[in-house]
């Protein structure tokens, strides 16, 4: 009820009543507890300036309930929960040192309460405070936060230890953000707004031994439980990113000492510690470390204990991500590849990580080969995995056929790896890619045949994920396929995709429809106008996608397909266009369509215009009305509202794409008269982008520069006075000096066009 009332600034006295329920000595324990719970729910659920204005009475009640003198654990726990929910509202109180001290004091005292749930919740408050109010924490760190959280990390109660670890993970995340902010500020030559106090680096020697010890407390079986050992691994990963080289020498003794320990808990912990520090330290140090470790690590893929093999193969996957050149050495691969193939037949949890390691290895090998040189499509001629490529594909397909492949997401991981292999394949693996396409198509057919026999919701969900993945695999294959080879396989591909789309009609498809549409897009891109033979069958699905307002992603994908069809068919799409255009206009008119979809429809006008050329005149006035209205509505009224800025950016980007297409379509002398009445509106949008300064992305400014060039080229001299204004010239100058190719190329071209037109006098 408060959620409804507070928006209208009504019923705010309910907070005062709840507060006095808590502070009144004659209130019963139950009344105090219930009142605090109510306040907690209000703080959790209601986002309104009205409740922020009531932060003081809320805090008074909460602090009163949290005091160590409070005899009831129920009341104290309800108050601590409410504090956790109220922290976002207390910004002003945290800025006031006296009030901040009181809040910190009651929370720190609550971390020592005898009742363990109160301690856990109070620790959660500290975790959250570290994120919300990092810059106020200096005075509390050494005397309170550090000793409290270090003790918590050592606690035997998992829930308490988890919060202690979470605190330091949060410190690392905050300091990583601050490091990024400092780097950005340095690039811009300004001082950062907030600075890091490097608490993680300072605490490292004290918390790392606790964390490594915690790593050894793994559970034998339960892989899904969140336990301190797993939280410790995540915390070490973040500490490595945050403290970089500093962590290496401190953690190395633990790794070397326990790598060959008889106790599997220690062996696994040592490998986990090693795998966790592979991102952060400098390349030089990492290289040395990995060079020593890689062969022994491959050896542990034969370990007697599954958890050790599981972690070892995960660590190898991480090495592939971070040390591509090292892992792709022939002497390493000679041992690694057979070991991975063997591990692929082990427990699903191990095989899952092998799939991931193979993906990373393929990416690493491709990257190394591409650095040596590529063809005009960016593909290297060969790579180090070429000789085993076929075998890798075969092994992965066998994995997806395992009877236990539905455990631990193994089947999905197998297809993911297959997709990465195809995506990262050089020219000499092309024949295998072609064969794989046929296998994938067969799989798709099998899946479509078993669909009706599945009963359980989980089986159906897994099948949908698999269909999505197979569509994605087809996308990868099509992107690799040579244009001349596509007609040989396009019929079965399209037949499979049409079947999938048919089965999605009228039900929640869990994203399958969208993936199928994206796969169609790839087919259109590679087939060009030859895709026309499928249009009769495909058009109903495309039209259905364009009016699927309930699933914005499908609607968006359908608009994307239409854009690609325009590029592929060019003028030949004209006979179909009345129907498509009517659907696009309905998207814009409909008030229930998600607002992020509409800009894409506006951008699509540009693709249609380019395809139709002078024939676009038929749609000019209607589309211009929509574009001009949208462009004038694309205003930033609140520079602090990130959502608004993002939406305005999206809208402007697509309006510019729409205008750009139209200007390019109506370039002929006969069409110039049609264009002229709209020029002023287009320049207005360009001017708005220019005036928005850094609130407009460089990419948007570059597109705006391109549109100026198009207008200058088409209209000539008469347009110069309205485009040679201070903000627009400044934007052109900024883009000319940009580090990004797109901005630079477009701004330079536009400047040349302006000079050329000037000289034409």
């Amino acid at each position, binding site marked *: 009820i408060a959620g409804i009332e507070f928006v209208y600034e009504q019923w705010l006295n309910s907070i005062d009543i709840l507060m006095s329920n808590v502070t009144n000595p004659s209130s019963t324990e139950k009344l105090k507890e219930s009142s605090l719970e109510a306040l907690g729910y209000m703080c959790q659920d209601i986002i309104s300036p009205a409740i922020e204005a009531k932060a003081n009475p809320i805090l008074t009640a909460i602090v009163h309930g949290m005091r160590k003198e409070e005899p009831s654990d129920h009341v104290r726990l309800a108050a601590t929960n409410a504090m956790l929910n109220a922290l976002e509202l207390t910004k002003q109180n945290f800025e006031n040192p006296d009030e901040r001290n009181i809040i910190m004091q009651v929370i720190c005292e609550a971390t020592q309460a005898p009742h363990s749930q109160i301690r856990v919740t109070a620790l959660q408050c500290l975790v959250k405070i570290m994120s919300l109010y990092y810059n106020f924490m200096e005075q509390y760190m050494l005397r309170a936060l550090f000793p409290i959280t270090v003790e918590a990390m050592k606690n035997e109660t998992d829930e308490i230890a988890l919060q202690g670890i*979470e605190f330091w*993970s949060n410190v690392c995340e905050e300091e990583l953000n601050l490091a990024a902010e400092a780097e950005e500020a340095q690039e811009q030559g300004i001082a950062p707004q907030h600075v890091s106090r490097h608490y993680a680096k300072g605490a490292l020697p004290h918390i790392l031994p606790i964390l490594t010890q915690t790593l050894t407390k793994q559970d034998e079986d339960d892989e*899904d439980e*969140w336990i301190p050992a*797993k*939280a410790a691994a*995540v915390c070490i990963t973040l500490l490595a990113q945050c403290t970089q080289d500093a962590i290496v020498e401190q953690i190395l003794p633990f790794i070397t000492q326990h790598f060959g320990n008889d106790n599997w808990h220690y062996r696994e912990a040592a490998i986990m510690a090693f795998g966790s520090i592979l991102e952060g330290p400098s390349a030089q140090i990492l290289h040395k470390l990995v060079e020593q470790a890689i062969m022994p690590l491959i050896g542990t893929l034969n370990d007697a204990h599954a958890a050790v093999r599981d972690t070892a193969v995960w660590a190898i996957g991480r090495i592939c991500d971070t040390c591509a050149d090292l892992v792709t050495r022939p002497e390493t691969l000679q041992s690694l590849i057979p070991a991975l193939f063997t591990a692929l037949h082990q427990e699903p949890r191990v095989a899952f990580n092998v799939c991931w390691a193979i993906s990373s290895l393929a*990416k690493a090998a*491709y*990257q190394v080969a*591409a*650095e040596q040189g*590529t063809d*005009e*499509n*960016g*593909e290297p001629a060969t790579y180090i995995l070429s000789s085993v490529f076929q075998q890798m594909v075969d092994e992965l397909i066998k994995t997806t056929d395992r009877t236990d492949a539905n455990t631990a*997401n193994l089947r*999905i991981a197998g297809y*993911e790896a297959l997709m990465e292999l195809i*995506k*990262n394949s050089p020219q000499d693996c092309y024949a295998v890619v072609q064969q794989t396409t046929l296998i994938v198509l067969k799989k798709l057919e099998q899946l479509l045949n078993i669909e009706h026999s599945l009963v359980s919701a989980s089986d159906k969900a897994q099948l949908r*994920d698999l269909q*999505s993945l197979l569509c*994605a695999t087809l*996308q990868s294959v099509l*992107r*690799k396929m040579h244009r001349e080879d596509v007609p040989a396989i396009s019929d079965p591909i399209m037949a499979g995709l049409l079947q999938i789309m048919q089965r999605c009609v009228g039900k929640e498809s869990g*994203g399958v429809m*969208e*993936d199928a549409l*994206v796969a169609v*897009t790839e087919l259109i*891109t*590679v087939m060009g106008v030859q895709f026309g033979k499928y249009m009769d069958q495909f058009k109903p699905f495309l039209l259905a996608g364009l009016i699927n307002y309930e699933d914005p*992603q499908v609607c*968006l*994908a359908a608009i*994307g397909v239409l*854009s*690609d069809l325009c*590029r592929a068919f060019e003028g030949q799409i004209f006979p179909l266009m009345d129907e498509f255009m009517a659907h696009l206009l309905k998207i814009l008119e409909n008030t229930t369509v998600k607002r992020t979809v509409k800009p894409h429809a506006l*951008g699509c006008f*540009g*693709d249609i215009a*380019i395809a139709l050329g002078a024939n676009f005149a038929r749609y000019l006035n209607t589309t211009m009305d929509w574009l001009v209205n949208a462009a004038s509505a694309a205003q930033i009224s609140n520079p602090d509202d990130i959502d608004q800025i993002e939406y305005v950016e999206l809208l402007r980007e697509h309006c510019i*794409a729409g205008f*750009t*297409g139209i200007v*390019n379509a109506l370039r002929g002398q006969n069409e110039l008269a049609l264009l002229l009445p709209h020029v002023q509106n287009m320049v207005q949008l360009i001017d708005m982008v220019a005036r928005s300064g850094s609130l407009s992305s460089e990419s948007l400014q570059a*597109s705006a520069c*391109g549109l100026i*060039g*198009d207008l200058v080229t088409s209209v000539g001299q008469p347009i110069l006075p309205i485009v040679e204004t201070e903000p627009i010239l400044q934007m052109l100058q900024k883009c000319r000096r940009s580090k990004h*190719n*797109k901005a630079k*190329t*477009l701004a330079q*071209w536009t400047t040349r066009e302006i000079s050329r037109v000037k000289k034409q006098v």
Partner: protein
Amino acid sequence: RFREFKNENKEKEKQRQRRQDALERQKSAREDFVLKLRGLINSTPKKDTSPGVQRP
């Protein structure tokens, strides 16, 4: 962090990323198409934008 660890929504995240990539490719195809019209590039747009592959 627990959810991240459990890989909850990991597949959804990858799916989202694939779709985002598809949108990016479409955006890039549109830009390349217009660049061609402006005479700023001659070749057809490249098909693959795999990581590590630099655009000319």
